[in-house]
């Protein structure tokens, strides 16, 4: 039984280490997932929120996309999915995913700068990973959206 005791200590030790890793992992890497409206409210209530990394889900405003010449810098505007009047500009310095169009739903990670521009470090488009389309759209099939810029 003595060995069993030592063994139990080992097991509990492993469990404790794993728990510790998960705990610190979560607290160090977690990001708030907010809507543009929530982000505005939070920043208003607490200006230090400018420095907190957040994840924001919204939709790109059609026609707002532009690429800054000579640099790998994309600029566009994102609005809230529900309240379309809540908008902010986004700057993103990286290659855009293939699924990005200027009307797509995006999830951005980054922070809202003091000047009100959202500096995105990662950009995900939302429809891309589910690989599915709504069949109801088929009723109007044939009208291809213009594409490419």
């Amino acid at each position, binding site marked *: 039984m003595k*060995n*069993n005791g*030592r*063994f139990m200590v*080992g*097991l509990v030790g*492993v*469990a404790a280490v*794993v728990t510790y*890793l*998960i705990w*610190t*992992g*979560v607290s*160090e*890497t*977690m*990001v*708030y*997932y*907010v809507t543009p409206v929530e982000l505005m409210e939070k920043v208003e209530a607490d200006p230090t929120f400018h420095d907190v990394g957040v*994840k924001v*889900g919204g939709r790109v405003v059609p026609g707002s996309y532009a690429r800054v010449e*000579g640099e*790998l810098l994309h600029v566009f505007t994102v609005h809230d999915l529900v309240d379309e009047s809540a908008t902010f500009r986004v700057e993103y310095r990286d*290659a*855009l*995913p*293939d*699924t*990005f*169009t200027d009307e797509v739903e995006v999830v951005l*990670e980054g922070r809202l700068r003091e000047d009100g521009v959202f500096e995105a470090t990662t950009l995900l488009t*939302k429809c*891309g*990973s*589910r*690989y*599915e*389309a709504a*069949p109801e*759209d*088929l*009723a109007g*099939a*044939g009208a*291809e*959206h213009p*594409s*490419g*810029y």
Partner: protein
Amino acid sequence: MTILGEFALWISLPVAAWGMILGYAGGRTQRGDLVLSAERSIYAVFGLLLLASAGVSAAFLGDRFEYWYVASYSNANLELFYKVTGLWAGQRGSLLFWALLLGFFASITVFTNRQKNREFMPYVAGVLQSILLFFIVVLLFADVNPFERLDFTPADGQGLNPQLQNYWMTIHPPTLYLGFTSFTIPFAFAIAALLNGRLDARWIQLTRRWILTSWFFLSVGIVFGMRWAYEELGWGGYWFWDPVENASLLPWLTATAFLHSIQIQENRGMLKVWNMSLVLMTFLLTIFATFLTRSGLIESVHSFAQELKIAYIFLSFMGGVLATCVILIVYRLPQLRSENQIESFLSRESAFLFNNLLLLGAAFSVMWGTMFPLISEGVTGQEISVGPPFFEKVNLPIGIVLLALVGIGPVIAWRRATKRNLQRNFATPVIVGLVTAAGLWIGGARHELALVTWSVSAFVLTIIFTEFWKGTRARARIEGEGYALAFFHLVSRNRRRWGGYIVHVGFVMMCIAFAGAAYNTDNRFNVQPGDVVEVTSPFGHTYQLTYEGLSVSIGRGQRNLLWQAIATVSVAQNGDPKGILTTEKRQYTNRNTQPMTEVGIRSILREDLYLILSALNDTNGALNNQPGAQGIDLQVLIKPLVNWIWIGCFMLAIGTVIALWPSVDRRRLPGGEKTSEREAALAGAD
């Protein structure tokens, strides 16, 4: 044909229900006629599901766009290959395909056991039919019927998402599903053991091959998915820690734990409750993964609302299975008592237990991280997510300890390791590990986790090769055989053991490759034709890349291609020409998607050179062949050691097949018990 398929699906419902009831009743009453009927009903359900699947395929091949499922995943111009694989392109077909595969495996099980293991079979048939019944009910009643019609017939379908039009993506889901469904067989035997009270290691021995088969398909299926991501998603990664990937990793982790812990039960009669729990957990996770991979549950709360019905059905099924199993295990607890106890901290049992604990810890952390957005939103109302850094922070340390255990486990003694056992087996490998670390440090490697991983890998490989070497040498001496023949005989005499070691070598190779990612380089350039750019590999050599220009072809809708813009880049390594690479943008006609990227990869054992055409400077100009519109954004990645992931996976697959191969081990044949010690030594008995 399609109507017939739909009809077959409906018929399969009462047949499966009938088989389920008869299976349990037959087991309870021991009436042979009931059992026979239950078993035959499995063949019947398999036949009906085959008809139903053929019906779906016929609808794809015949462009029957009045069916929702066909209209959503196909169009008239889609390549034949993708019409054939349309059966598992989306959620609805996948669920039918899942049931079909389970029907297939269930039929094999019933057939191979028609003359034997009769005490298990009634309940096995009952359990298998219950699960088949569940999937049939889902297909028919959870708004996911692949035979659902639209109230109008569209002129053409939506087409298949271009990202799914890739060879790896057509074989990745079925491979995973083969792994998921074949794990149902060991689960059914475990439940049968709980029901009939035969709680020794018999159910494990009977299903060992199924467990390995399932593990084989899970492993290979996951790596196929990585390969697809690497080639098709176009940013050079192979693992993203996204919910769908995590969902397929979870059952792999618990299945791996199970694969190891059953050896303790077989050898020492311990961990019976634990093994029951692991088989249950793995089964539930395969169901969870099936559900999650084809739904949007984690991604967004909105899609959750749309799929409330199927989510509730799946969750209540999982809850029901869990409750039933827990009750059964508690009821049988007195018979599940351990026959032995752990004698020492330093023993193989203990190494295996730590392996299990770490694998479960990893599984728990992956589960936690995946579900965290849902949990935090449920608890605080504020959605908080954790990304890849979380998974890496938790799982890299766990992974490195597991890697070390891969070396320690197989050579440490059962029961109690003596000092001599430890010294003899571990002195040289530890030295090799340390020398490797020193060598890499001198060679300029400074990344701590990568250094540790490579040193531990060297330690493990030394142990495994020493084992192979000792066994081969002993056999060569005693039998007077040449080394090659001796090696071949050694492996074939105890396939399970040596096959397992080969699997371990494959796993180590993959870990070495994963650590290589610490030295990835990423460079971006904006280039005009004729421009030369240089990138330096972490191995020290330099690539000179010349952008030769863009060639544009305008398609007429064949293969759904609207246009293709192909950038050609000549590659030279330290000035030596090494051929050309192409990377392209493709615009497909269907859907309002943006152009897709096809990457160019030059793969050598040391590293991959990975070119991405990030963007065209002026798409319209380039399409109209305007001079001066050929500029592009070119991203150049160097990915050290990536190839060893695929090679390691191949090795792992070979090892599993060797372990699976029917054994001609004479010691296990009846009457062959009194084999000489010499024979045992030759087989490398543990």
